[in-house]
């Protein structure tokens, strides 16, 4: 006689296992999704910090080298010698004579320019590297401010 042992699992046990498997899979997917999000966010953050560092050095030396400004608009700076700093998409473009140099800003970032002047100080160009929201609108409370004084008007 062959002895076959049958372990009869109850319906309750089966349901419990299904529920538990569902909960575990849900948790695993949630962890995966959140980890991916965090990973992406910090990659962008690293790129942003690198970009700000690189842009601020180049921006300051460019503004110092080109002297007085002719026009400062939120998306463009034109110097009296014809050099230009402008935003083209998400690229910050520096044009001086025939040479053009551009810095790609991280996705979700833009730049605005403004001219500021205080008494007994040379005028300065303020560049704000601003975070864009999901509708590509500027989030004016999230920005990094870079100040560069215009040479030629030192007081």
């Amino acid at each position, binding site marked *: *006689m062959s002895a076959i*042992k*049958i372990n009869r699992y109850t319906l309750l046990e089966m349901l*419990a296992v299904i529920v538990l498997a569902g909960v575990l899979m849900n948790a695993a997917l949630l962890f995966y999704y*959140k980890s991916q999000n965090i990973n992406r966010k910090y990659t962008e953050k690293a790129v942003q910090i690198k970009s700000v560092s690189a842009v601020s050095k180049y921006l300051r030396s460019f503004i110092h080298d080109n002297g007085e400004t002719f026009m400062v608009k939120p998306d463009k700076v034109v110097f009296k010698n014809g050099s230009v700093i402008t935003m083209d998409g998400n690229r910050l473009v520096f044009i001086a004579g025939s040479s053009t140099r551009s810095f790609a800003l991280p996705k979700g970032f833009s730049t605005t320019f403004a001219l500021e002047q205080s008494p007994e100080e*040379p005028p300065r160009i303020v560049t704000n590297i601003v975070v864009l929201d999901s509708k590509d609108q500027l989030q004016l409370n999230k920005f990094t*401010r*870079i100040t560069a004084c215009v040479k030629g008007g030192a007081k």
Partner: protein
Amino acid sequence: MKNEKQVTIRYYLMAEMVFALGLLMVLTACFFATTNTIQRMDKSFTDESCGLMVVDNTLERLEHKKQYKLDDVKRIFLDEYDKSGIKDRTKMLAAFTPSPDGATLAIIKHNSKPLIEVQIKCQQ
């Protein structure tokens, strides 16, 4: 011959489930605690970057003045602090301390420790 039926009743089933769910909850709590810590570190790091930019921008403005006095240093430092936006976004404070031969500019973190301190020599 009658079929043999062996029915095993396992009393530890509920304990197993409770243990598994407990373990899952601990794992979830650890995961979210880690996420939360990373987010706090990120905010702190972003705030610190902005704090450093305040001092950097102040030095840029001072560098382009032919001469500056204590009042100028204070005005420029506090102006940069106000315009940087960190006043509204963070708990970091700007501290200006005059000294006999100049002044000390500092950005103080929320735990009252200085993030950066710069000593500047200037006329009184």
